[in-house]
């Protein structure tokens, strides 16, 4: 699964849904793989408005990437800063989590990722 997927996931435990701590899930001991993807500035520009920037910053650090700027780049920033464009391209479009777990900061539940597929099926006592 691409790192960007984490922007759209939360803990599956009902009681966690209403707490802000259940997003983002924190990657733990993750193995990463990298796809090679042709530069796609249109995609990058149009997906950035829907990225929760502070959450992405904490995910990047947890995965061992350099920390992000405090504020998200504007489309103009992105166009003028080829390094930032390349870094975001790598983090958001090329990097996949293949193994590891995603942890809810509210309830502590760990969702395993195996062969790139995160498993959100809960044991019966948590449903």
């Amino acid at each position, binding site marked *: 699964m*691409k790192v960007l997927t984490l922007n759209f996931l939360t803990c599956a435990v009902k009681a966690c849904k209403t707490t802000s701590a259940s997003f983002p899930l924190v990657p733990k001991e993750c193995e990463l793989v990298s796809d090679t993807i042709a530069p796609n500035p*249109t995609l990058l520009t149009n*997906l950035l408005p*829907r990225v929760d920037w502070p959450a992405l910053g904490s995910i990047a650090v947890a995965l061992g990437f350099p920390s992000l700027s405090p504020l998200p780049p504007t*489309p103009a920033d992105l166009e003028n800063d080829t390094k930032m464009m390349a870094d975001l391209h790598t983090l958001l479009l090329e990097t996949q989590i293949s193994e590891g777990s995603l942890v809810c900061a509210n309830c502590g539940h760990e969702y395993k990722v195996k062969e790139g597929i995160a498993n959100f099926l809960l044991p019966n006592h948590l449903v």
Partner: protein
Amino acid sequence: MLPTPSTSHVSFDRVYEPAEDSYLLLDTLSSESEKEFLQDRFTHSKPPTSTPPKNSPSPLIIEVGSGSGVVLSFIHAHALTIFGRSDILTAGIDVNPHACQATIQTIRCAEKEQEVSKTSHGFYLGNVAADLTGALRCGEVDVLIFNPPYVPTPNLPSLVGDPKLSAFDADSHLLELSYAGGEDGMEVTNRLIESLPGILSRDRGCAYVLLCAQNKPEVAKEGIRKWGSRWMAETVGSSGKNAGWEKLQIVRIWRESPPISTT
């Protein structure tokens, strides 16, 4: 007719094999009227152009119960034709981990085909194993697609198979999950429909859900319209018409945009 992605690599012993219901979804989503609806909602310029309007965020398309991946990979590969833009984000969810693997592979094959013919495709995020929309963040999904387990059955299978099952019984359990819908065949679909107001994006969210005649589709649509005056539910595709009964139909569920303020 847009080409249907290949699923010949999928083991149909434990993953739902594409059938009439899957193809009805493909036909409906690529019909002239749905292309118009989707392009109107997600692209304001007239299609097909590869440059989406500035500042219109990439739409997120989620298929729940992606199975072999035939529907998701079709939309993914034909994003430009269907949405008028190829910068869409796609992802699949299935309770069956083998189905998740199958979808990943089907998407990969479809992307290769597109690349060979030098045509575009969307951006695939991945598949997660989950119960319906339970792992999704609120208000993010722009288009949700669901071909549910819709056959009326006396019981519903449990979501997770007993680890003590033999390989054969484990596969049968997974196939049962793909069709068994409980009372009126609606127990799973009703849970999904109830989650829509929470998970669809406020301004652009819409859903396509397949229903069969035994599901009492008119009752389901009436129920959605009662959510509030902006909520709509209409049949936008059907197959197997016989004496006025559609055997299968696709219901589009969406919120009309509020009137544009002129001040």
